[in-house]
Every structure is written in structure tokens, then in C-alpha cells.
């Protein structure tokens, strides 16, 4: 079932986009599709949210973009991580691990 993500936290989409670029340059559509397929459609990525998030990452100099050709042989704007972006991704991953561990701890608590 394709569910609208409940409340994608501000900045979460940026972290996901960074992760998707950790294997190499990708264009915007591919980033969105990759997330949707990986989460089996749990997270639906809308163009209206994805591209502004990418622009924000560009503004922070975590990614940079260049027009090129996609794997499908079509013109596409390809995004890739900068050194700062790689660093940032590492931090985001750690933060998320601690955060989700903490939330799970609380929500799974069996006794008071």
C-alpha cells in the first residue's frame, strides 16, 4: 500500500537524499525512486519536496550538481556528494541510530 509518510521530520528527506548519493552521482528522479523502492513505497517522495531539499543541500555545499546524461541516456541534472556532504552523512546516520534506538526503547517498554 502506498501511504503518505506520516510526518517526515524536517531535514529527514535531506539525510535520505545524502544517503542515496553515497554510491555515486544520481539525478533527482532516481533519488526519489530509490527511496520509494527501498521502503517498498512506505515513503512516497514528491517532486515538490524533493527538489527544494536538494537545493537546500546545494546551498549548504553538501552536494553539487552538473548537467549530464543519465543511465537511460537522457539529459539530467546529476547531483553528487561533496566532501562536506560525506562528513554530514556520517553524522546524520549516527544521530538517527541513537534517536531511533531511544524512541524504540521508550515505545517498546514493557514495564513502568
Amino acid at each position, binding site marked *: 500500500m502506498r501511504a503518505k509518510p506520516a510526518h517526515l521530520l524536517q531535514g529527514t528527506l535531506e539525510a535520505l537524499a545524502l544517503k542515496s548519493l553515497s554510491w555515486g552521482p544520481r539525478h533527482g528522479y532516481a533519488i526519489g525512486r530509490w527511496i520509494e523502492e527501498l521502503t517498498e513505497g512506505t515513503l512516497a517522495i514528491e*517532486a515538490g519536496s524533493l527538489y527544494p531539499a536538494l537545493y537546500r543541500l546545494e*546551498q549548504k555545499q553538501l552536494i553539487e550538481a552538473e548537467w549530464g546524461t543519465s543511465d*537511460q541516456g537522457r539529459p539530467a541534472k546529476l547531483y553528487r556528494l561533496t566532501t562536506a556532504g560525506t562528513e554530514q552523512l556520517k553524522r546524520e546516520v549516527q544521530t538517527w541510530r541513537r534517536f531511533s534506538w531511544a524512541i524504540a526503547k521508550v515505545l517498546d517498554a514493557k514495564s513502568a
Partner: protein
Amino acid sequence: MWRFLRPAPEQEVRAELESHLEHAVAELVAKGMAPDEARRQALHALGRLADTTRRLERGAERRNRAETRRAWLGELAQDVRFAFRSFRRWPLPTAVVTGSIALGVAGTLAVFAVVKAVLLAPLPYPAAERLVRVAERVPTGDRWELSYPAFRDLRDRSRTLDRVIGYSRSLANVAMGEETVQIPTATVSVDALELLGAIPVAGRGFLPADGSGEGPPVAVVSERLWRSRFGRSPDLVGSTQLIEGTAVTIVGVLPADFRFPEDETAIWLPLPPAAPWMENRAVHIVEVVGRLAPGATVAGATAELDAQLARAQQAEPGSDPEHRAAIYPLHEGVVGAVQPTLTLLLAAAATVLLLVTVNVGGMLLTRAVRRDREIGIRRALGARPGRLARQLMTESLVLASLGGILGLGLAYLGLGAVLGQLPAGLPRLSEVRFDPIVLASAAGVVLISGLLFGLAPTLYAVRSSRPSPLGHVAVGGRSWQRAARRALVTAQLALAQVLLVAMALLAVSLLRLQRVDPGFDPSSLLTMTVTLPPDYSPERVIGFYEDLPARLERLPGVSSATAVSRLPISGGEGSGDLTIEGRTFPPGGSPPATFRRVLPNYFQVAGIPLVSGRVFDATDRGQGDFVVAINESFARRYWPDRDPVGARIKVGPAESEPWLTVVGVVGDVHNVGLADQPGLTTYEPYAQRPGRRLSVLVRAAGDPTSLIEPVRRALRAGDASVPIVEVGLMQQRIARSLAPRRFVMWLVSGFGALAVAIAVIGVWGLARQSVDESRRELGVRAALGAAPASLVRGILGGTALLAAIGIGLGTAASLVVRRLIEGQLFATAAADPVVVVTVGLALGLIAIAATLLPAIDGSRTDPSRVLRTD
């Protein structure tokens, strides 16, 4: 770098969304969907296309703005770093530029800090812009204070002034233990302190009852007096002090920064009701300040006071019918006298700064030419002209900022020194400080001068530079640059000429002033002023000074001694109240005169010659005929063809004063000041018109300073509490009377010297540059046999032409601004041709001298070396 060459956001977004759509459609088609259906579904997934597009565009715009800003800051940082690197390769000129900017900024800033505090800042009183001074204008143009009745009428009835206060100032004798000291004191309306916003730091201000003249006498004192004289004793408030011989209760202390009416005023007494003698409308003794009612104007208040004066005249004929209201802002009353001086100083300082700016512009222009190769290469590598211009401007601004910061430091140090040197009497000096407004103006001035001197080199670089890998620049650029450089040097000489003319005029008038014959012999004269206590009987007062010469002449080292009511060169000219038998003056039109009372031996001790008749003797005691001596100017003006001895005059109100018979004519003395014409002077014997204040003159046989203590002791022999002030040498007093002029002269001379130094640097730099540029030509000409002298002459001739033009322009400019300096001069015209021509010739010679060294250097050019290079 490609990141900064983005397309417009809407193009970028459209392309990106198209690519997105194509990829989505391709994926669906690959899964077997019909192309039309695939496109429909992919479009549907994008949501409302217009909304999505707008969101993306907004995001892209925000990112682009941030990137532009970052790029700009990045380039700025790069430019600043670049500027510092290029300064390191150019250390001496950078130091000269920075130093001269610092001096220019420091001078302007220090003077501006004073101008801002004294002239521009509102007075430190509530509703200060509505406070006005109220006085009367007499037909001679002088301002007189109001009479007590006029003050009272205005206070009680005015509709244009919602508050009116009166005051008078004096030096009060205050007993301090054994000693009596004189302290600047003001007697003020009881509501004055509240009107002027003085909130006591201890005790209270005045109550209405304090001004009734009936209760116990009270006073408030300044925190400064409390600190300096009473060691901040908590018991001062409530204590009783002996002021002018009366026991007065101190009821309050006013904050140290409350200053009224003078900066030094330290005691305030409540103004009592008018004493009987003050009820006379011809007695002008109350200084008045009013506050304009909301909506009222100075003109309205003037009309009201005029009407009031006219009514009083009808009710009481004979009292000053020609007087008119004179109402003007209190600010003008406080600082009006120093405004021309400060304006002149500010103009001089600003001229120096302008000169610095022009000079630095010239130096940077020369440097831009030396950098042709560098700039050409950078253009070839793709630097845009705008980028180059920004970088050159950044360099100028960095230089200006460096100089500005240094100048701020200098001004801060210098201001303290200057304030210490200032002649006494400049109002509001305690308010001078570097506040944010002064600092902001400094930053503004630095910025503007940086932009100005950056203009020429930047224009040059942008105009002349075309991409050229060989780094050569179009020849047109060079000739433009040479013309600009010459124009800048000409401007420098013009500005220097303006300052030098001002400096020379001030110096000449000071010299002329110092050569003025004071009319008496000031050498070896010791002076001090004694005020006898008010409880002395007239007999005791007369006894004190009749005995004085003999008492002092007994001291070893004293050759003679005398006394006068007020020392020479000490002001004291009064208007009106002079009656001459057989002459009538229009009402209020009697000539201004100076009045002195003297001991019989005064003329002889002071060295004032007797022209005709006799001097006073011990018999002139006011019994029988009253006598008077007049000065030569007086005699010449009213008795041009006969001896005035025997004529009769009156000093004071004609109806009440007796006739005085002229018994002698004495030489003219500059009693008011060296710069003031002697005018009309009358001398009366002390014994005929006793007074409690007298200034003692002691002629020493040797060193007068060694006599200070013996004379002081002798004067206090009968009464240790007699206050003695103004102790000093007559020659020092004369020097001090010239101190304000000397100060202005030195300050302007400082600016003038700086101006010449900077102009010399400019001329020298230009000469060196033109020698460098024409070295090849000089070499060729030398090889062809031209004499070195003719080469030198050619370069000198160029400078002479510039100097002639610059000095001519400067002379014209100094004529245009002569109004600024006219009031500061003595017996010297602002357009004095001798001064102007001498200064111009001197500056021209200096300019030629500055050219000489580079010119000689150029004439020695070795032809073979020049011909081999290039």
C-alpha cells in the same frame, strides 16, 4: 566556478522537471504502459504542476541568493588578502599613504569631536531647543541685560514664554578655614534648577520660599565643589558656610555634569526679590533665559517683549526708549563667540584631509600604471573589468581603513593633548568626547575618502586595460593617466596654498598684535587682585589703599607699588552713561567708554605718560571739586583743537552723578585688550569713588616672581582672610590674552605644514614618475649631446607651470573663503596682497625644489644603459 554561472531559476526548474518527467514516463513505458497513459500518470504524480513549479523556483532562488552572497564575501576576503599581499611588495609608499591618511583623519576627527560637542550637540537641558536668551538691543548694536522690573513683567505676564528665569553671576568670597577663596557663583530664580533639569544628588534644590528674601539664606553647591573642597563630606548638606560674609545653609548638591550659566559655576544662590536700587528700569542687571511656549516662536516673543518695553516707556518716560528686544536661542548665547574659530579650524582640518585624499589618489594612480603588466595578464586570464575595479577599490578602502584606524588612535591621544592646551573660556569643553556619532562620522569620512582616492586608479585600470597576454596597455591610457596625475598635483598645490595663506595671515596678525604698544610699561610688573570683605567700612576701605603703596614699597626688591580698579588688557568696556558738558547725545547713544579708578601714583608706576594738566594727588578725595583724567583719544575726539583740562563730564546716570572736572590728559592704554582700540577712557581717584575690589601693581627692581609671597603677606597683614586672586606677571597676562589667537595660529600652522609636506610628496612623486617615463628620451637626447642643464630645465619648467596654475587657483579659492578667517585677523586684510604673493612664491620655490632631485637624477641618465634596455 561554474556554480556561479547558473541559468535563471525558472529555466533551471523547467529543465529539471522535464528531465524528471521523461525518466518517469520511460520507466512506466518500460513496464509496458502505453506512452499516453504513462505520461498522464507521471504528470499526475507531480501534483498541481503550477504549484510544484513555484515551490521549486522559490527554493532555487533562495539558494542562488545565498550563493551570490557567499561568492561576494569570498571575493571580498580574497580582495582584502590580495590587497595586503600587494602592500607587502610596496612597503614604503604604503606606510606614507597610511600615515598621511592617519594624520588627515586624526586632525579632522579631533576638531570635529570638539565642533560636535560645542556647536552641534543640543545644550544638556530639557527642551533645550525651546530655551532662549532674552536681552535688549541698544542703538549701538550691543546687547544689554534686562532690568529687574522688565524681567519681572516678562516672567509674570508673557504668553510666548511659558517659563522665564533670571540670574546673575559673580565670584563669591567663601571662607575655607583660615583662608577665603573666590568661587564662581550664580544667583538664580528659584525655579531655574528645575527648568534646566538639575536633579540634586544630595539634599534638595530651591523651594519657592528660598526666593522670598525673608527665610534663612540657603545655597546649593556643585558635586565638583563638594568633592574638591569638602572631600565629599556627608555633613555638608545642612551645614552653614560663610559666603560673602553671610552664614548660608547648604541645602543640596547638584550633579557634577550640571553646568549653568558657566562651566565653572559651583555655587547657586536663590534670586531674592528686587532690592530698592534694582527697581530702576535703567539698571540692566538680570540675565534672562526663557522657554518658548508650545507653538510660540522667537519672532513672537520678540514682538511681545518689544510691546512690553514700549508700555514701560510710556508709563515711565526717560527709561531707555531706544531699546529693542533681542531674543535668540540659548545655544547661540553659549557658543556664539567661538563658532567662527571652530568653523575655521574644521575647514582647515578638512582641507588637509582633502589634500591627503588627492595625494593618495595620485600615488595609487602611479602604482596602477606600474601594474599595467599584472592587470593586463589578469584581464587576459579572464578577469572581468568589474571584478578588477572592485579589487582596486577594495585596496583603496583597505588603505583608508588602516589609515582611519590609526587616525582614530592618534585623534584619541591628540584630543587629550589639545584639550589640555586650549585657552580657558571655551564653553562646553567638558562635553567633548568620542561618542558613537563622532565615530560614525569618522567611518563615513574614511569611507568617502577611500572611494575618492580609489577613483583615479580604478578608472585608469578599467579604461586602459584590454586583455593582453603581453601585459602592454593602450597608449591612450598612459596619456590620460599623465593628465590626471598632473591635475591631482595641481589640486594639491592649490589646497596647500589655501592653508598657507590662512596660516600666514594668522601669523602676521599675531605678530602685529604682539608689536602693539600697550601704552604702559609691562616689564617687571607683578599684579594681584584683592577684594576687601563687605563688612569693611568705607573709611577702612579708603585707609587700606591709601596706605598700600607705602606698605608695599617698604618690602626689599619693590621699587614702586600702586592699585587700579581693573588691570590693563583685561576688558571692562561699558556702554553709555557718559555725559559731556555742552554736548547732547541721542537717547541711548552715548559713546562706549572704559572706566578705571586709580591711586594717585598709578600713572607714574605704570609708566603712562601725562600729556597735559596734572595727575591726581592726595587732595583728590571727593571733597570740593570732583576730578577726572581722560586719555588722549578721548581728548582728541571731543576737544580736537583745545586742551580739555577744565572741561566737565559725568560718569554714570546723568541725573544722579556729579560733574567731574578734567584735570589731566594721559596717554592711551589698551585697557580692554591689545586687539581693541584704546577708545575713550576715564580715570578717577579711588578716594573719590571707593570700591572694594582693587588690582595691585608692583614694579620689581629684580625678579618679580620672588616678590609674590612677600607682597601677598603684606596685603594680608591686617586681615588674613582677605581673598587674593589673579596673581601673576603683567607680561604673562598680555601673553595669555593672546593665547587663543596663538593657539588657533599654531593649529592652523600645523595643518599648513602638513599640507606642504604632502604637496611636496605629490610634486616629487610626479617628477620622479615623469623622469622614469622619459628616461629613454632623456638618454637619447643626452647621447645626441644635450647638456644636462637643459634637461633639468625642461623638467623644472613643467613643475613651474603646474605650480603657477595650482597656486593661482589656491589664491582664488582663499579669496572665496576669506569670510571664514576675516574675524580672526588683526589689522590684516584677508586678501593682503603681500601675504598672498609671498606665500605663493614660497610654495612655488618649495615645489621646484622638490622637483630638483629627480630632475638632476634624470639628467645623469646613462645613454648606453637606457638604449640597451627595451
